[in-house]
């Protein structure tokens, strides 16, 4: 019997229809990441790899630092004046946390979807056109094509193609969230950060957005914060379980999603996923 270098990658494939994307090539390599707000440490010494083309779910109770973790990855923590981030996040041989990182370029490569749909109070088309224009796509024809493709990718094209010039705010919550996903993927990012993207939606819209997220697997590396364990189980290839110890968020366990749910290594994980804790 030979030792395998990684935990058996394709177990997932044998248990359920495994996506072909899950060769564990690290896309982001996070080492010793800590986040402090003022004197309060909210995340302490987190190290893990985010694998390319996979969906990684971040689970755990409220306040354990999942969202803080997510917002360090595209440097949204920069906007918080008293936030202090240490450690390293390696992305394409660069440390994202370096001061010389071009934040605008970084955010083009790492998109983000928020908990509450946040379309701009502009027309549907203008919502999608804005990031394209900003990132230098001058041809109107190319922009039109990209807008149509992004809307088709999120399944909105048939719903809105006849009213691209109407306000995005007139869309339903689920449509707005899919528009936000379209707005993020129109820049062709490599990584998508999602902060509880379904939690503000009704069950049907939530299901549609969830299906959409699953379809992103392979093309995009997705990191999704969710409080919905069933959702994590359904969509994710990998799961990271965070927990709060003495008001400080810590990564307790990280592994393939199904393993983490079926055979948790840590008693806290076991208690949380069985509903006994959290």
């Amino acid at each position: 019997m030979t030792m395998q270098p990684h935990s058996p990658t394709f177990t997932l494939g044998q248990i359920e229809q495994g996506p072909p994307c899950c060769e564990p090539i690290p896309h982001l390599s996070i080492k010793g990441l800590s986040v402090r707000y003022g004197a309060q440490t909210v995340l302490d010494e987190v190290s893990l790899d985010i694998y390319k083309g996979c969906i990684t779910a971040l689970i755990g109770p409220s306040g354990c630092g999942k969202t803080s973790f997510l917002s360090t990855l595209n440097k949204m923590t920069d906007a918080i004046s008293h936030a202090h981030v240490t450690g390293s996040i390696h992305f394409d041989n660069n440390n994202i946390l370096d001061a010389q990182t071009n934040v605008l370029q970084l955010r083009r490569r790492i998109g983000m979807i928020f908990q509450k749909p946040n379309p701009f109070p502009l027309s549907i088309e203008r919502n999608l056109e804005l990031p394209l224009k900003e990132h230098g796509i001058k041809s109107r024809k190319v922009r039109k094509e990209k807008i149509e493709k992004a809307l088709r990718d999120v399944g909105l094209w048939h719903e809105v193609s006849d009213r691209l010039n109407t306000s995005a705010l007139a869309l339903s919550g689920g449509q707005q969230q899919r528009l936000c996903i379209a707005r993020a993927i129109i820049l062709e990012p490599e990584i998508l950060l999602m902060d509880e993207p379904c939690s503000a939606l009704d069950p049907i819209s939530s299901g549609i957005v969830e299906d959409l997220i699953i379809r992103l697997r392979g093309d995009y590396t997705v990191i999704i914060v969710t409080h919905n364990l069933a959702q994590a189980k359904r969509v994710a290839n990998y799961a990271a379980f965070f927990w709060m110890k003495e008001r400080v968020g810590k990564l307790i366990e990280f592994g393939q999603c199904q393993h983490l749910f079926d055979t948790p290594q840590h008693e806290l994980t076991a208690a949380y996923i069985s509903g006994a804790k959290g």
Partner: protein
Amino acid sequence: MAKASTRSNRTDTYLSRILGAMGLLCALLLVLVVFFLLKEAWPVVQSGGWLRFFHAQGWYPLEQLFGMLPMIWASIAMALGAILLALPIGVASALFLLFYAPPSVAKIYRLLLNLLAGIPSVVFGLWGLTELVPIIATWHAPGTSLLAAILVLTLMIIPTVALTSVAALSAVPKELHAGAQALGLTRKTRIMSVIIPAAKAGIISGALLATARALGETMAVLMVAGNVVQTPSSLFDPVRALTANIALEMAYAMSDHRASLFAAGLLLTLIVWGLALIASRIVKSNGKVLAYAK
């Protein structure tokens, strides 16, 4: 226990009655003002109908000619000119205060705007008369002019525009800021293409209220506009505003002349209310953008 709660219930009842009475009083005052204006204006309306104010050949009270159009045009030109200048300056001040100024500067700047808003209009008039009018006179006599009125009014309403814009821009939900940042938009694009459109309704309604203030301003305008009743044909023409006309002539006006001044007051009141109504409509229609905040 039961007693205490009865007592606090009774206090609450009294309080609600007192507050209700105060509210009613305010509403009643408004009705009374309109009633009073209508009553005083009635004789001249009865003798010649509303249209006489618009059809008469000019304003010659001694000849029973009460044509207000030249003064209406003058008032509109002043208010419009002032808001056209004050809107960009006021919005730019608000953007500077909120997004560009370092916190310490922003704090002082906000204080300055508040102080500017509190300067009595007669002081603006004094400044206009002694400083501004002579400068304009060197370009084109006599100096007291539509332009002088516009510039003084602009200064007066800049703080209104700036402060209402600050309020509107600060009310833009943080989700929109975050969304724009996460897309890698530059600060300029975030402000120009996302934040200002989101705050547009609040900015416009503030501008309408500022316009209403400019229309209603009397003293400063009276001091610098020159007060010649004529339809303005150039920025350097001396003109008389509807408000200034009331202030100038009320002391000696009799019978129909007096009544027509009240009619002018009624007209001004209605225009200002119209502007306020439009402003509140715009804010209401913008509810969706602000609904994010919930």
